[in-house]
């Protein structure tokens, strides 16, 4: 599975990405995850991702991301605030699984 994360600068989501990877590894799930900033998203989303995840602090730009992701036929989900921290791995993995299924 290839998951693309977007936050303001691509830094904070990198931390969350680690939590997600750890949780996925527990279940033996192979994940390829990348974190980008808002400006890189439009380009990056075209590169064959299975799911785009939007960080809660940039949710006011969600509509724009959704449009860009839809154009590239990538499903786009908002990360729940409770899952956006180093301990949020389990919740996050649940959201990712749901997002990919849809």
């Amino acid at each position, binding site marked *: 599975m290839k998951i693309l994360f977007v936050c303001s600068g691509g830094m*904070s989501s990198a931390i969350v990405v680690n939590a997600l990877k750890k949780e996925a590894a527990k279940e033996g799930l192979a994940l390829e995850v990348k974190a980008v900033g808002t400006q890189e998203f439009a380009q990056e989303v075209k590169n064959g991702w299975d799911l785009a995840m939007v960080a809660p602090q940039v949710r006011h730009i969600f509509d724009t991301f959704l449009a860009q992701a839809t154009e590239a036929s990538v499903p786009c989900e908002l990360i729940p605030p409770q899952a956006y*921290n180093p301990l949020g791995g389990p919740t996050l993995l649940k959201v990712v699984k749901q997002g990919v299924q849809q």
Partner: protein
Amino acid sequence: MEKLIAFLEKNFSTPMAKLSEQKHLRAIRDGVVSALPFIIFGSIFLIIAFPPVPKDSMIAHWAASHISEILIPYRLTMFIMTLYITFGIGYNLSQSYKLDPLSGGLLSVAAFLFSIGVQTFNTAFFLPMANLGGHGLFVGMIVSIFAVEVLRLCKHSNFTIKLPDSVPPSVFRSFESLIPVAIVLIIMTIVTVVFGVNLHSLVDRAVAPLVKAGDTLPGVLIPVFLITFFWSFGIHGVSVVGAVARPVWEVYLGNNSSAVASGQAIPHIAPETFFQWFVWIGGSGATLGLVIAMFLVGRSSYSKTMARTTVVPSLFNINEPVIFGMPIVLNPVLIIPFIVTPLIGASLAYGATALGFVTATYVQVPWTLPAPIGAYLATGGDWRAIILVLINIAISIVVYLPFFRIYDKKLLLQEQTTDVSDHNTLAL
């Protein structure tokens, strides 16, 4: 309290955050941000030119005697930052309109160059470089928006030169933008050459009140408050407030650095670097103090785990893990110190800078440096800046501590009464 938060979120934070994503505001912000690597690179040479060493040392002598050469990399980057920013604004705005971004960026630069006022000396021609700098940023913003809007208008009204489909796209593109280029540049020529209007002094006068207001204590405290206000709802405050404030902050930084480069007194207190290094220690809300308080008095196992996992990112000013982890977002207990601490820190730093206890910031370094180092470099190597940062960290610990204690007690109680292994859901 919860009703108030819901009301504020629905009627203030969300609509305002959406507004900050308005196309022009976003293009300006992204344009400024795209020039940051050049600004950071150039400003490092200010430190080399004015090294933080005793004046009679060898290094200081060497720097003093080679100052104009040392400053050349600065002169060609940070000193003329608006040239780069203008391209960035034009590029980003065209992109959001789905126009060819390269044409938009180039046309913006051309329109901006037309505003500079070429000077002749004997038979040679000169561009006054100061007008290409932070000083000219507002002119750069206006003309690049003008340029891209003309481009858009021409495209939408099909007022372009049409070529058959067999023509390669790159050739097609350059012809397509020929008419808008001509319109923009003829208008610029008429304004600046035929009528001899000096756009820079005109715009300077128009924005003077704004530039003055942003550098006062209220001008500093209002953005500080708004940034933590937005974060309290989990919205990236700097990105929202920066959409409006960033140009002004960048003008201050440009003016401060060019004053230092030419040996004059530093004019402004509050460029963005002021907020970054003296106020946002550990990230927006000065949360490094909270993380330290968590280490000092945290008793619940959730707080202890949080403290361990968030301390390293916090040292590098990344605090989303704290904001969404504790959480501070929509948490009435922690929102209070989250908003109050930076207001105190900003007031103290403002006073210290205004009274000359600490050099005003004029160097831009990457925001992920630990605050004492960043503050030292941003002030061109003033050790007193480190003291100010340490005092502000101490204050933030003191302000956060009692509120954290209340919250920690609640967490502890929950942990004792419920047997849940997943601490994450517990805290929420």
